[in-house]
């Protein structure tokens, strides 16, 4: 009997509809972007490994890292990583606010989402502007 009951329940268990069922909304796109930026940063940690190992290994390996990071492709990658990190960080704050039960109102959730989207872009550009300023002083 338990066997029959189990299979019957399995047959009737609801399936979660997949993404393409829903009309695209900003909050949903940002949730997906949160995942994608997280996955990108996961692999970006390899750059961190390279950087630290090279610094520990000596001047020549470190010069190679500096050459790569200074090249246009290196800068593009680092700029992308900076944006991904800021997007994931600000998106993370938004999710933490939602986790403790705030910011779920129709207008609140929209402006929170917009704020993190725009905030990440602004902070990224500011960080790079500041970075170039600091490099100019050094």
């Amino acid at each position, binding site marked *: 009997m338990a066997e029959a009951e189990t299979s019957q329940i399995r047959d009737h268990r609801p399936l979660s509809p997949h993404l393409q069922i829903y009309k695209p909304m900003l909050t949903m796109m940002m949730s997906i972007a949160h995942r994608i930026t997280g996955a990108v940063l996961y692999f970006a*940690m390899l750059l*961190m*490994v390279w950087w630290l190992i090279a610094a*520990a290994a000596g001047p020549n390996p470190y010069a190679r890292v500096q050459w790569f990071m200074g090249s246009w492709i290196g800068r593009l990658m680092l700029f992308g990583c900076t944006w991904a990190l800021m997007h994931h960080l600000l998106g993370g704050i938004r*999710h933490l606010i939602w986790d403790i039960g705030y910011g779920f109102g129709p207008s609140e959730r929209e402006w929170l989402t917009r704020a993190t989207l725009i905030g990440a872009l602004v902070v990224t550009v500011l960080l790079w502007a500041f970075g170039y300023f600091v490099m100019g002083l050094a």
Partner: protein
Amino acid sequence: MSAPLRDTRTPLGRVRGLGSARSGTMHFWHQRLTSVAGLGLTVAFIVIVMSVMGRNHAAVVQILGSPVVVLLLLLFVFNTTYHMWLGMQVIIEDYVHHELSKLALLMLNTFFSIVVGLACSYALLKLSFGV
């Protein structure tokens, strides 16, 4: 037996009471814990990166090897590798439905996270102790 299907759990699932994740809330909680810790540590990380940008190797070694910087970066590395290990696990569990591929990727995820964490930590300790 055709009880109304309000409860969609299997009898075994009902007895275990653990939900679809097959475990308690520790995974969820640790994800949040490391995300809160990551806020401050990321700020520290950015400040440290800014302070070494464009400098030569000797200056970088001196900055990265100082105790406070090493401590902050070690905390950042531990926190980040644990956080990314948890996060990638969720992504794999959500999108990979072939059982064997899922197991293989979950293992790879663990290996990758440990190697990244250990490699960064080793480099930082070497910079710090200067051997």
